[in-house]
């Protein structure tokens, strides 16, 4: 058994696709944010496997992954702050029940 770059890339593609499915079907804002995190993780797998297999002498991919993680954390924080604001003021976090505005 051998594992090469292509295996990691395919795994990342599957994880990204699963996340995409979740984003399209979840009704709940927190649920959607969790699925987006799956997609960010798929991206990071891509970056880190490229860093190992393509540029082992200068691991730019890992640097990129660090930034992705930091920014994902910042985004999640802001997202959850808004979710809590909506829940406190309007008692609802379902995205398609909030239909003051149409999609």
């Amino acid at each position, binding site marked *: 058994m051998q594992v090469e770059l292509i295996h990691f890339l395919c795994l990342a593609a599957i994880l990204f696709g699963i996340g995409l499915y979740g984003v399209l079907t979840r009704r709940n804002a927190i649920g959607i944010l969790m699925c987006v995190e799956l997609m960010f993780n798929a991206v990071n797998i891509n970056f880190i496997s490229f860093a190992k297999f393509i540029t082992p002498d200068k691991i730019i991919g890992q640097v990129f992954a660090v930034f992705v993680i930091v920014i994902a954390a910042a985004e999640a924080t802001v997202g959850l702050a*808004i979710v809590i604001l909506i829940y406190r003021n309007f008692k609802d976090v379902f995205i398609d029940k909030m239909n003051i505005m149409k999609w």
Partner: protein
Amino acid sequence: MNLRFDIMIPELFLFGWAIVVLTADLFFIKEKKNALLYMSQFGFLAAAALVIFTPTGPNEVGFGYMFYNDTFASFFKIVILLAGFMAVSSSFEAVQKSIEHKGEFFGLVIMSAVGMMFLVSSTELVSLYVALELSTIPLFILTAFQKRYLKSSEAGLKYLILGALSSALLLYGMSFMYGMTGTTVLLAGSITMLLNSANVHYGLVLSLVLVVAGLGFKLALVPFHMWAPDVYEGAPTPITSYLSVASKAAGLAALTRIVYGFYTVGTAAEYWGILIAILAALAMIIGNFAALLQSNIKRMLAYSSIAQAGYILVGFVAASQLGLSGISIYIFAYLFANMGAFAIVVAVDHKLNSDRIEDYAGMARRSPLIAVCMTIFLLSLAGIPPTAGFIAKYKVFMAAIENGTLFWLVMIAVATTVVSIFYYARVIKEMFITEREVESSESKWILSSPITIAILVGLIGTLIIGIYPEPFLELASTVTQSFVY
């Protein structure tokens, strides 16, 4: 490594100014908070002045291509700073009415502008992504800033979720760009050598589609536009105007950097033209027809800005010096007309508490000057002479015709321009023709001075570019110097 702090003085100043505004907030009593608005106005203007005096050119590169101050970047910085200035100016009424944390409001607007300035200067993927997020995360917060309105919170959440989704798509595309070249620098020379010649078609197409989809969300291109009308309607109106101009200009700059820097090399050049041309056609058709159906002026302007992005892409596809300078002049014209129109929407919203187009009825009698200004802005958006919009549309269409293969796209553009006249004219008709009972108690409208400045800047810009465009055309033609064909 070359630590060129001297070419990023405007960014450093503006970030410092954001901290100054945030700190000053603590020292002002509630009645004096308006000073924060004047401080932010000053910050934007001073940064714009600094941008003008910062050297530009092919040698002004710092931090290993992460900061590149070419004429293209400094042109977009001026656009972003002017948009920020006008958005802040037109926020006087809105801030007094529904914004509780004024210092944070202005501080975040400035920080977002700092992010956009870094974004237009980035010729490297990591710094481009970080700057993109620095420009959008404050915008998510600002969209949700009217905490007592469900519409605003909901718009903020929707914007954040779709923004995160688009970042994921963009990053996934970027990871393949990195994987195929082993570098993150977006410079044609270094990529040509690294890109493994003829064998990368599939990977290139895949990464191109993902990157364009990711940036398409940020630019609100069809079919990634679903969020725009809701967010534009729900956000505080000054933020809407800022979103529709500054954020769009910054996204366009990022698209230009990536597509012209990466996908014009070798075999990659064949793919992006047709993809972007289709997106442009879709944006013009769907944006203009959907705008016809709107009864809320903010939603109408949202769809109109989707369509405007389509016209900008027409110049983008032309991929020539003419096309790029056409885009630059278009963005300039769009900046003044759209910011001006939104400033008037803020004023009307303040006086009448309504965003509905019917409520613009009788405006000509109530406040003739505002009605005339609004008419000029809408005519410019529609592209009717003697306004700036006409020159801009003319330049972009000419560039596309010169390209030779894009005649069909120009036909669609012209046809949809005719459609667009209908919905812009509808507002004008309401203002001038529809009769409305004017209550005798209603006095003449007196606008605050900041919002008057915003409207005046928009008006002067629109008319000067429309009547005497030569210096601006000359300026626009220098913008393209750093892109080689």
